[in-house]
Structure formats: structure tokens, C-alpha cells
């Protein structure tokens, strides 16, 4: 610590010292450069003007607004509106044009696919996955196996009204819980599952599958929805069982589980939540994922 506090003028530079001295080394009290000091004062004056012109001080439940009425939030709202206005023409065309017309117009198609991709990421990816690859209980939208149909109109209808939702026009199908409700015995369920494996040419026991086939067409009455050949029926939302594409898994255990419980997922209706143009863009995007018919 300093042991002397006597302020003196340094003889070498002519500058006052702070009076602090450490082992004979004194500290100069060099004044701030004039230009720096004036810049600093100018900044203070500037800031006063800033308080008047711009929103500055927080109050208890409000803040000072400033004379210029500047608002970052308003700017965002305005620029979003400007973007919407600039896209209005394209969006109108998306709503009014037929799917074939949109497909024939590269500008509209690209606009729809880009918008559909964003809307998909925002709304659909939560269940169907970022790449629409789906998961257990959530259909993969990249493949060509469709429960409710893969044409543009069918996809649009599914998106608009949902599946097993609360919209009056929602798509509804209900597979019976054959095991839970005691419609089939456990051995019948096991046999049927073996037959379902055989439909997709997966490894199976032919003799057991033969017994299952009888249940499929007989006691279970599976064929009434899934069809005589097991190829399903998109009218009633019965999946194709011959495609080796599985919503709830393709192992024997998973198939038995499905026959026992009759799972069915729920997809919300989007028609009230998204505007018509976005719905159509979503349908075009999903259709373009590779499985569209």
C-alpha cells in the first residue's frame, strides 16, 4: 500500500500525481484527453434527446413511449403484414386453382411446397416427425401405403377434418378390441397374427397361418374391413395388411397386441386452425413426399 498521500507535481512531465507512491514509484494523475471528455459529454446530451424521442424508462406497469412513437413490436407486425400482402396473390391462386393447375405451374408448385414444408414443421412434425417418417402409431407419410388414401384430395380431406377427432366430418374407423372384449380366444388371435404375417410374405408357420386364415374370414370377420385379400379398404380406413408396412409394428407379438386391443390413433382436424391456403400447401407438400397417388 501507499505510504505517502502528498499530492505533488511530477518534475519530469509537469503532471500532478495522485499522491500514491509505492516503493518510490509515484502514480501520475494524467487528465482524460480533451476529445474523449467532450465526446463523453456529447453522449450524455445525446442520451437525454434519446429519452425524449424513444421508449426508454420502465414504469411500474408501463414505460415511457417517446415522442417518435417507435415500437419494435409494431415494426414486426407491419413487416409480417407486408410479407402476407406480398404473398396474397400466390395464396389466392393456391386456394382457387385445381391441384393439376398448381402442379403445372412451377412457381406455384415451389411456393406451395416451400410453404407446406414450413407449415409441416410447425404443426405436423410433432407426431409425424421432421422428415414425415412417422413412428409407432404415427403413419409414415413418405411411403405409398395410405390408410385413408394418397390422392391429393384424400390427403387434403384427412388434414382438414382429422381422424377420430371431434370435427363432424372427421374420418372414423374403429377396429374391435378382439381380445379385450373376448370376441376371439387368445389362440385364435395367435393364429390370425400368423396369417397376417404370411400376407406380407414374412417368415411364418404355414399350418398355423391356415388356421388363422379361417378366423380371418370367419369368426374374426377381419375380411369385412381389410378385404378378402387383406389389401385393406381406404373408404373405411382399414390398412393394407400385405404391404409389410406397419403402423403398430410388424412382429407377431405386435400384431397380436393390435388384434387384442384394436388401437386407433387420433389426428386433430386442422381446418379451423390453419387457413385454406396453408391446408392446401400442406396437402401438396405431403403428396410430394414420394407416396402421392
Amino acid at each position, binding site marked *: 500500500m501507499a505510504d505517502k498521500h502528498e499530492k505533488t507535481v511530477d518534475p519530469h512531465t*509537469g503532471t500532478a500525481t495522485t499522491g500514491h507512491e509505492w516503493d518510490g514509484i509515484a502514480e501520475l494523475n494524467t487528465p482524460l484527453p480533451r476529445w474523449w471528455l467532450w465526446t463523453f459529454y456529447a453522449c450524455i446530451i445525446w442520451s437525454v434527446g434519446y429519452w425524449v424521442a424513444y421508449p426508454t424508462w420502465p414504469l411500474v406497469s408501463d414505460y415511457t413511449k417517446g415522442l417518435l412513437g417507435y415500437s419494435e413490436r409494431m415494426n414486426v407486425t407491419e413487416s409480417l403484414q407486408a410479407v402476407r400482402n406480398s404473398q396474397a396473390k400466390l395464396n389466392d391462386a393456391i386456394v382457387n386453382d385445381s391441384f393439376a393447375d398448381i402442379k403445372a405451374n412451377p412457381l406455384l408448385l415451389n411456393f406451395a411446397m416451400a410453404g407446406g414444408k414450413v407449415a409441416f414443421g410447425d404443426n405436423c412434425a410433432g407426431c409425424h*416427425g421432421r422428415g414425415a*417418417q412417422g413412428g409407432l402409431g404415427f403413419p409414415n407419410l413418405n*411411403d405409398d401405403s395410405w390408410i385413408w388414401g394418397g390422392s391429393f384430395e384424400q390427403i387434403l380431406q384427412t388434414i382438414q377434418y382429422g381422424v377420430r377427432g371431434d370435427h363432424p366430418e372427421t374420418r372414423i374407423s374403429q377396429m374391435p378390441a378382439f381380445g379385450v372384449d373376448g370376441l376371439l380366444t387368445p389362440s385364435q388371435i395367435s393364429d390370425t397374427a400368423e396369417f397376417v404375417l404370411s400376407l406380407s410374405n414374412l417368415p411364418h408357420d404355414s399350418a398355423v397361418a391356415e388356421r388363422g386364415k379361417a378366423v380371418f374370414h370367419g369368426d374374426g370377420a377381419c375380411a369385412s374391413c381389410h378385404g378378402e385379400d387383406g389389401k385393406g379398404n381406404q373408404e373405411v380406413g382399414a390398412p393394407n395388411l*400385405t404391404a409389410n*408396412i406397419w403402423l403398430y409394428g410388424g412382429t407377431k407379438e405386435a400384431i397380436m397386441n393390435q388384434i387384442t386391443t384394436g388401437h386407433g390413433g387420433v389426428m386433430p382436424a386442422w381446418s379451423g386452425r390453419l387457413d385454406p391456403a396453408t391446408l392446401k400447401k400442406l396437402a401438396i407438400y405431403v403428396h410430394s413426399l414420394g407416396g402421392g397417388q
Partner: protein
Amino acid sequence: MSCCDSIYARALILEHTMTDISTSITPAASPTPGKKRAEVSPPTQSTNLYKAREPIYPKLVHGKFRRIKWIFMAVSLGIYYLLPWLRWDRGPTLPDQAVLLDFAHQRLYIFDLEIWAQEFYYVTGLLIISALLLFLVTALAGRVWCGYACPQTVWTDLMIAVERIWQGDRNARLKLAKSPWSLDKTWRLAGTHVSWLFIGLATGGALVFYFADAPTLFMELVNFEAPAVAYIFIGIFTATTYVLGGLSREQVCTYMCPWPRIQGAMFDADSLLITYRGFRGEPRGPHKKGDTWEGRGDCIDCNQCVVVCPAGIDIRNGAQLECIQCALCIDACDEVMTKVGRPTKLIAYDTYRNLEAEAHGERARIRLIRPRTILYAGLTALVGGLMLFGLSQKTIFEMNVVPDRNPLFVQLSDGSIRNGYEIRLLNKRRETRTFALSVSLPEAKINVVGIDGENPPLTVAPDDLRSIKVYVSVPREKAATLGATTPVTISARDTDDGTETSRETTFKGPER
């Protein structure tokens, strides 16, 4: 050994600097009464560390190097100002300006060379070559870049020449500077500064022409219809040319430019530097016609080398940071030496090694080829060769293939496996081309999103990039023979000339 040489050279430079300081501390020993070096005051007084610039009024000199500099100035400024106006036919769709940096379309046109934004590394190569060439000439002959070619030197030289037209040569300018304000002084100074501003305006004006079609932009500029950015850049370059070339001059080289400090590492005892050959000149002193030259040096202390110097230094004090090696002192001294009947080259391009040798009455060999120069020349040749090779391999069609990562693959209802690829086709030709895709997988089907039919032909517009989403599917039986990852080649064949461009990628499938 070049490394030892450079240490040796630095030691020499240090020695010179030390001598400078010691001589300037003792006023009696100061070799140049006209030019003050750093004054060291007794420590009892208060010291002001700021020293205002002393204006320099370089005298006009005639001679070989001045002539070279005039020619170089005319050629380099001529190229700079006129090049944007040179036309070069590239067909109807492309600009016809010989040198054009087109930011809007991300192209650099240099005569027949067209560089796209993603090929900008050619420009990097050009900069590396420039730097290496700079190293080479600096190792050979010191700051020749600074002395002859640097824009700061060229424009300052031009500004001084203009100043001379308005205000006369050194003595007249000195007198004018000291004289009180008068009508004569006012119009001479005004004329000088207006001329400088005009040169600045022309400099900034020429610069913007490199970024847009020159005749069009010129008419827009005249009619005040040009984009604001053009006016802003003209303003910036007018101001910098006026301030740096007209007002700041040698201060830019001494205080602002990093290059003088870097190049100190590049010359050594064998570099040819502009040097006062003290062994011949000393002891200096005034000489009357008819006096003997016996027992004295050739330097008659006429100060001509000092008054012509644009950096305001005395070359006789040895190598100095301020010296841009413009060689004007050589011309000035040669003129005087011829007049008094002594051999020229008292100030000349010479090496430190020779100076040391001459001090002992010997001569040192000039060694232009030495490890350092061989290294710089070799590196220049290497980078130049790489660039030439790169340019010879420059493609006119490029393809980019990015496989989908989510999902990696999709299994379809007939058991086939499908992979998606984002493919970008870049057509650098000035005409529309059609391409056909193929995949090195048996029985693979190719579909393109947005286009009906299998493997449709793909047209790419001239000078354009087309992005497409491609699906490749392999039937169930074939897919069963593939592993989780199969290396494949996707090729695009130009249907017009049959050339094929291929990219390696992978085809993903389920684990087997």
C-alpha cells in the same frame, strides 16, 4: 545461409539506427542541419510527446528514375481509369464489359474468364501470387513496390505534380506558404485543392464503373439517376484520395501502412537497396570549382537528395523506415555529380554486404540468386502452376448430390426401397442444356418431384442453377441383396454432347 544473412542485415540496420540516434543527440555531430531528428530534452522539463507534421515541398528532379516513374504513373493510372470502358463481346445474354465485378449475379468477368461466386478461390490464388511476388521483389531490390507501383505513391506523385502546376516548384511553394494571404495565394491554393478533389472524383468514379456497366452507369450518374450506393462510394473514394494522396501523403506510408514494417523481414544483406555510399562520399563538405578532390569524399553537401525527397528524409543517414525507395535522390545526386565532374552513383541501388566490403577497399558480388529468392520464386511458380491447373480443369457443368437424412430410406408397399436425393445442376454454359440422370444400381427407378414419368430429361436454363428432388427406388428382390449402406454413383449425362458428370453417394436400406 539466408537466415544468418537476415540476422546480419538486421544487426546492420540496428547499428545504423543506433548511430542515427547517437549523432542526433549530439547536435554538433548532426549530419543534416536542415532536418531535425528526434530531440531529446533534459528530463527536468515537461515534454510534449506530440510533434506536428513538417510540410514537405519536394523539388522537381529530372533523370532516369523520374522518367521511369512518369511512365509507370501514366500506364497504371491509364489502366485504372480506362479499363472499365473496354468492351468485350460475350454473346447476347452476358455483359460486354471486359472487366466487371457483377455483385447482383455473383460473377466476376475478366476478359474471357468468368468466375462464379463459389469459384472465388481463384481470386485468393491471385492474391497469394501477388503477395509472393511482392516478397520476391522486396528480397531482390527492397521497396520497389512502395517506390514505383503503390497507389499511395502514384497518386501522391500525381498530387504533387498538380500542386507544382498551380504553385510552382519547391522554392516558390515554400515562399507561397510563408507569404500572407493574398488574392494570388488564394487562387493558387484553391486551384490546387479543386484539382485534387477532381482527381479524387475521377478515382472514385472509375472505381464504381468496375461494378456496373460503365456507359449506362455514367449516364445515370450524370442524370442523378444512379443508385445511392454509387454516389456513396464515389464520395468515399473522392474523400480518401483527396485526404490520403493530397493531404496526408508520406504520413500514410510512415504511420498507417503495415507493409513497410513487414517487409523489413524480407530484405537481407544481399538486397539491392537505395543507399548513400558513404565510403565514397565521406568526408563530405562544400567544394569550390578547381579545388582538389584529394583527401575528401565526393559528397559536396549540396542537399539536393534531401530537397527532392517526398518522404522528407536524408538518405545519407542510412536505411530509414520513412524511405519508400522512390529513387528520386539517385536522379538528384547523379545530376550534381555530373555537374561537378565526379562519377555518378554516389547514391545508388547497392547491398549492405557491398557497403561493408567497400569500407575495406574490397567489392562484394551481387547475389540475386540465393536461398531466399529461390524460395519466393519457387512458391510463386508453385501457386501459379496450381492456379493454371485449376483453370484448365474449370468445369462448365457442376452437379451436387445431397442424400436425404430424414428419413434415410422409405420402404414402399411393394417391398421396394426408396432413397431421396436433393440434386443441384449448375449449367455455366450460355445456352439451355438437357441432362439425363442415371444411378449405378440395377433396376433402379428414378423419379423427379413435380415431373411426371420415370427418369424425365432435365433442362437447365443458361447460366443457371436448378434444384430438384429425386427419388431412387430399388425393387424388393434387388433391395434384399443390398446392405444398410451401398455406395452408388449418380451421373448426369449431357444429352447434347454426351459428356457425363458423376457424384459418389450412398443408397441406404434396412439392416439385414
